[in-house]
């Protein structure tokens, strides 16, 4: 009997981001339970750490997993800031790691490490095609953006703006909202009523508050809301009301995605955790598959890290809830982007998929080499 394979895993499990962290962890737990904590003939031991969403803590926890627990491979974290913080350490220690959620563009672009395989998405990835979609299919010409003021917001808006402008659209105003804001009234007062749409990016409680207040101020019926998928992600959607209906967003996953793989996943997840799966839940369910597939391929012989890394990068896990995915040579997935619109079905809000934009790369239609010569999207 060989000793178990140790997988280190870190997400925030306390503090403001705890629920998202918990969702990611749940996805992983579901996957491991389905696999019976077993792969390639070896037992799998999962070691979970709470990174509190604080980069320095994340680094300490990564050190703990690597140096004390001597894990073979790792998964996590949630926040891009933590992801950037631990990347140099992971690189130096040569531990294969999957990033299921952290979406900072440069993690797989200008500051990539070969030891890190992203199985989620880059912030701008869904937005490149969505900019074109908004122009051509939705027919929007004049748009204002309101987004959270941090890298996730800048990169998302940046990606959208780029393709939307290229098509000939016009962005009349870009409003940036600090993360600490609760009352969006000062920003809403600046939304002019003759726009075709506003593009928004919010997460968690800000999404809830924003859409609620957007309706409060009578804007919902005048200016449609489009935006980044996190704004109506399933971790907040159940708490929303009619104010969310009609909001159209883009992401690489939807809980309402009507495929056999997703239906199975969704049913299993609901049964196990009594919750609707969000993209966070799906992220590590799928991300974990790269690890398990690689372990299977190596028959459990994961001690050689270079070999293990190659196996992870070469893994082609199938049956992912979100659809087919391949990893590009930069370590980022090429995957479907879904345009979703919030609808009420059987009394419950869901992100109905209204368009599938297939095989979207982090570089969209641009040449990667040229793309990387341009600066990262900023405000």
């Amino acid at each position: 009997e060989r000793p178990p394979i140790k997988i280190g895993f870190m997400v925030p499990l306390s503090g403001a981001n705890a629920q998202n962290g918990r969702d990611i962890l749940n996805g992983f737990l579901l996957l491991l339970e389905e696999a019976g904590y077993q792969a390639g003939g070896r037992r799998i031991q999962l070691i979970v750490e709470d990174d509190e969403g604080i980069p320095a803590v994340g680094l300490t926890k990564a050190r703990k997993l690597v140096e004390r627990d001597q894990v073979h491979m790792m998964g996590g974290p949630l926040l891009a800031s933590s992801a950037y913080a631990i990347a140099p350490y992971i690189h130096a220690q040569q531990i294969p790691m999957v990033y299921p959620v952290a979406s900072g563009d440069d993690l797989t672009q200008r500051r990539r490490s070969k030891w890190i395989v992203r199985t989620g998405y880059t912030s701008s990835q869904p937005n490149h095609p969505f900019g074109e979609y908004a122009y051509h299919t939705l027919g929007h010409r004049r748009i204002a953006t309101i987004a959270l003021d941090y890298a996730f917001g800048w990169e998302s808006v940046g990606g959208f703006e780029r393709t939307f402008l290229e098509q000939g659209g016009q962005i009349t105003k870009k409003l940036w909202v600090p993360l600490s804001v609760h009352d969006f009234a000062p920003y809403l007062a600046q939304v002019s009523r003759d726009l075709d749409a506003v593009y928004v990016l919010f997460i968690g409680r800000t999404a809830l508050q924003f859409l609620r207040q957007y309706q409060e101020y009578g804007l919902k019926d005048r200016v449609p809301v489009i935006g980044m998928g996190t704004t109506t992600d399933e971790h907040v959607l159940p708490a929303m009301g009619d104010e969310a209906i009609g909001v159209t967003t883009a992401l690489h996953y939807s809980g309402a995605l009507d495929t056999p793989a997703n239906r199975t996943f969704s049913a299993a997840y609901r049964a196990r955790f009594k919750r609707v799966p969000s993209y966070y839940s799906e992220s590590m369910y799928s991300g974990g598959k790269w690890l398990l597939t690689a372990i299977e391929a190596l028959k459990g012989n994961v001690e050689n890290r270079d070999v293990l890394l190659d196996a992870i990068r070469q893994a082609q896990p199938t049956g992912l809830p979100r659809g087919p995915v391949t990893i590009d040579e930069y370590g980022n997935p090429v995957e479907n982007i879904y345009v979703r619109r919030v609808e009420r079905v059987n009394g419950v809000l869901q992100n109905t998929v209204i368009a599938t934009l297939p095989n979207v790369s982090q570089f969209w239609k641009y040449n990667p080499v040229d793309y990387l010569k341009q600066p990262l999207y900023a405000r």
Partner: protein
Amino acid sequence: MTYLITQTLNGLFSAALLFLIASGLTLAFGVMKIVNIAHGSFYMLGVYIAYTVILRTQSLLLGAAAAIVVVSALGFVMQRFFLRRFGNDPLAQMMMTMGFALLFRDATLMIWGGDPFTLQYPGWLRGSMEAGDVVFPYYRLFVIVVAALVGVALWAINEKTLLGARLRATVDDPEMASAMGINVTLLSGLVFAAGAGLAAFGGVMGGPILGGYAGLDFDLLPLAFVVVIVGGMGSLKGAFVGSLVVGMIDNYGKALVPELSYFTLFAPMILVLALKPTGLYGRA
């Protein structure tokens, strides 16, 4: 003009909500010199308890009442059994409230999970008032009125009644107050409970707009402190003026110079303290 009216109304609303949150804090500080780090937690617990009760009973009123009662009781117990022992050690009291804040924060996460939610609007306050181009939600108007009423009531109690004088005596010298026949223990407990209850009430009032979520406690705490500090710790009038000043500056600041959004809240406070080290109405 429209813009001016809208932003001013928004500012008033911010001020109203800030006042509801800050008045309880200033009360607890005023009477017991307790820098209550758990005040944001009281607000948060108020929202969560109201939410739970409303889910079960569908009654907003019951929800609000339950929130106030439970949180007040919690405050009373906290004061009576934990804070009171350190009556002469403000630092220990503050640390104690910090410990409770951590406890409440994680307990909330454990009990309710970390998903955000909002409370419903009362049915009769849905929709918004429209006058020309000015759109302003009824509910926000309602909050402004309620805050004003609460302010007047608190002021009257503090300045015009014997109870108020007793409270202030307890602040000045608890030992002598007890020698003058005031049951300081009970009074302090009740005041702290009232402060907690006010926070919970603020939570319920803010619930339909801000809702509840993990981290709400520590998001709101600095706001409450900014207001109280600008006005002067322990002064009700200070909390009132402070919330107006902070609400307006923050609102106009975010609207007019969004570049400085991060600073509109704290910069005025630094300015005030740099010029007047005890806030607008505070005494050293």
